[in-house]
């Protein structure tokens, strides 16, 4: 608590800057992902995909298509369905976006950097229970979906919301259970400590606990309601699920929340299983001294994490265009009868092995 | 540092509101929610008292209270569903078999 005036000011401004950068990044994730989600399957299916929209003659591989889409989406007419619970209908997108962006603040994006003689951590919210914080806040995402479905006064919305909330609370358990072995292995709930512990490739989470990694990836898809687990918005059955009645900017907000939570879970997977901002065989934190510019290590660490997260984002798109949708009972039996027992067994075996090794 | 008594007053208010809800709401689910409110008031007292007496036992008690609250909610809601299946209502005015 011995903060001096200067240090407090620097940390305060740094926190504001970090918040602005991360929030800006989160807002820019959906357009890029929408573009990727059209170009990647086009590449897989040997067709062109959107490539026309551009500024004058620069087409940028159709990257501006999603900008055009965003503009179109925001300027559409806003329709509130009759008989909707007005207050809840309007507040549901906030319930959806808030947890997604809040969780993005707790990911460590790089090593602590030294600027002007002050140590600045590269995550906006630094708590010693980072893991629990992420789980706690991301478990609030269910409310956005549920309230949206209930408030729109539409049976398809309600069915979609019920499906989505049942799915999300079911798959939260394997998601949490897959990360308990990691907490046991590295002995900390602080994400930054876990990243620092993964300095070599044989210390990565994916090497030490591959079963955890498999469980995490499956649960990650289910948690974000993405294919092959996108039953909540199965077009053939439920129109569009919980956001059937949403238009314009509110619809865009649900879109934003979905893609941001995908990004956050990708970052978490990279952080926990693939060493976060660390590169094997080289300590990024020594870059500051090597190059001589303070803060370079932070930028490089951020880039490394981003590349690793981009792999998972790509995996999302890849799986979406490869695996058909599950049936609802298959989804539930996969979660409760397969993943939770395996997860429990994984925790017990890891604990026993660790106890034997450390004995 | 805030005096412990302030937390106690807040918890008392919450507990009283919970009692009112549990007594006067006719919806069974609302009764269960009011009970959750009362349990939370108790949690607040545990944590504040634990901190005021520089002890950790308050926080540990809260872990147990949350466990019991989760069990209570699960069993209680299961009973609500069973009652709804049998009688088609969860209004306590109509559930009066035990009243003779």
């Amino acid at each position, binding site marked *: 608590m011995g*903060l001096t*005036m200067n240090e*407090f000011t620097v940390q305060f401004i740094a926190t504001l800057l970090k918040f602005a950068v991360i929030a800006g990044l989160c807002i820019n994730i959906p357009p890029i992902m929408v573009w990727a989600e059209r170009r990647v399957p086009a590449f897989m299916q040997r067709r062109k995909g959107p490539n026309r929209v551009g500024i004058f003659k620069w087409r940028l591989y159709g990257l501006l298509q999603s900008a055009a889409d965003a503009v179109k989406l925001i300027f559409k007419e806003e329709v509130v369905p009759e008989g909707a619970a007005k207050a*809840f209908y309007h507040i549901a997108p906030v319930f959806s976006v808030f947890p997604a962006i809040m969780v993005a603040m707790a990911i460590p994006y790089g090593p602590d950097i030294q600027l002007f003689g002050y140590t600045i951590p590269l995550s906006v919210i630094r708590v*010693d*229970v980072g893991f629990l914080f992420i*789980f*706690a806040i991301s*478990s*609030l995402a269910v*409310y956005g979906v*549920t*309230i949206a479905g209930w408030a729109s006064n539409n049976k398809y919305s309600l069915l979609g*919301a*019920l499906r989505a*909330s049942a799915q999300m609370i079911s798959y*939260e358990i394997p998601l949490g259970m897959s990360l308990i072995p990691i907490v046991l292995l590295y002995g900390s*709930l602080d994400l930054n400590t876990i990243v620092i512990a993964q300095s070599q490739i044989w210390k990565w989470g994916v090497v030490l606990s591959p079963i955890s990694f498999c469980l995490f990836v499956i649960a990650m898809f289910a948690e974000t309601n993405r294919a092959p687990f996108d039953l909540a918005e199965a077009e053939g059955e439920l129109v569009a699920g919980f956001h059937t009645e949403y238009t314009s900017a509110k619809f865009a907000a649900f879109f934003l929340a979905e893609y941001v939570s995908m990004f956050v879970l990708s970052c978490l997977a990279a952080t926990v299983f693939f060493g976060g901002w660390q590169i094997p065989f080289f300590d990024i934190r020594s870059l500051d001294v090597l190059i001589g510019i303070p803060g370079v290590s932070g930028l490089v660490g951020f880039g490394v994490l981003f590349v690793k997260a981009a792999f998972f984002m790509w995996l999302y798109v890849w799986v979406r265009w490869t695996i058909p949708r599950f049936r609802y009972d298959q989804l539930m039996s996969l979660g409760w009868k397969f993943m939770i027992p395996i997860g429990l067994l994984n925790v017990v075996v890891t604990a026993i092995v660790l106890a034997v090794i450390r004995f | 540092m*805030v005096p412990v*008594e*302030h*937390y*106690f007053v*807040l918890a*008392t*208010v919450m507990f*009283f*509101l919970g*009692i009112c809800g549990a007594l*006067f709401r006719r*919806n069974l*689910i*609302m009764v269960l*929610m*009011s009970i*959750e*409110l009362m349990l*939370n008031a108790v949690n607040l007292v545990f*944590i504040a008292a634990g901190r005021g*007496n*520089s*002890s950790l036992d308050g*926080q*540990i008690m*809260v872990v147990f209270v*949350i*466990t*019991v*609250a*989760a069990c209570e*909610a*699960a*069993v209680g*809601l*299961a009973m*609500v*569903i*069973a009652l709804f299946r049998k009688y088609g209502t*969860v209004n306590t*005015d109509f559930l009066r078999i035990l009243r003779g």
Partner: protein
Amino acid sequence: MFDLPLFLNSSLLSIGVFHFFAAMITIVSLLVVVSQHPVKSAVFLVVDLFLLAGLYASMDSHFIAAIQILVYAGAIVVLFLFVIMLLNLKADSIKGLRFSAPEAAALLISFIGFLIMTFNVFRGQAPEGIKGGFSIEAIDANGGNTYMVAMRLLTTYIWPFELASMLILLAIVAAIVIAKKDKILKSLIQKELR
């Protein structure tokens, strides 16, 4: 000169924060109890739990704050909301609200209890508890709040902890048995449908 860090560490700010949280919690708790539609009550309950978690975090109990949001807001209230939607409950009508004699007596007694408690608190007669050895400085020196809580929970309180796990197992079985559909009823319905 206005010294911001000193102000931030002073008791004035923490009391201000507490009063803000206290006012919010009181209002939201009231809304939980008086909202006519159960869904509204459930949403206000989530807000209430979130504010309480903030209060816990301001008392350096980060672990409990996280558990509060994770278990209460993330699981229990979702369950409530889920059941409300599953049963498709409508808003309560205020007309049906009436007092019966035992309820009025219970309210009176609890109100008297409330007055006694508040009075005692303001008189400053709260009994002096046993001072434990875990002041905030001692906790920080020994590895932080989460570590200390875990150590105490898994050594001194290991048997209650195991009992709690048995209780959860019991609750799972009980919930499934109670909410399971009646088999005889089901076969009867199927016979009717045929």
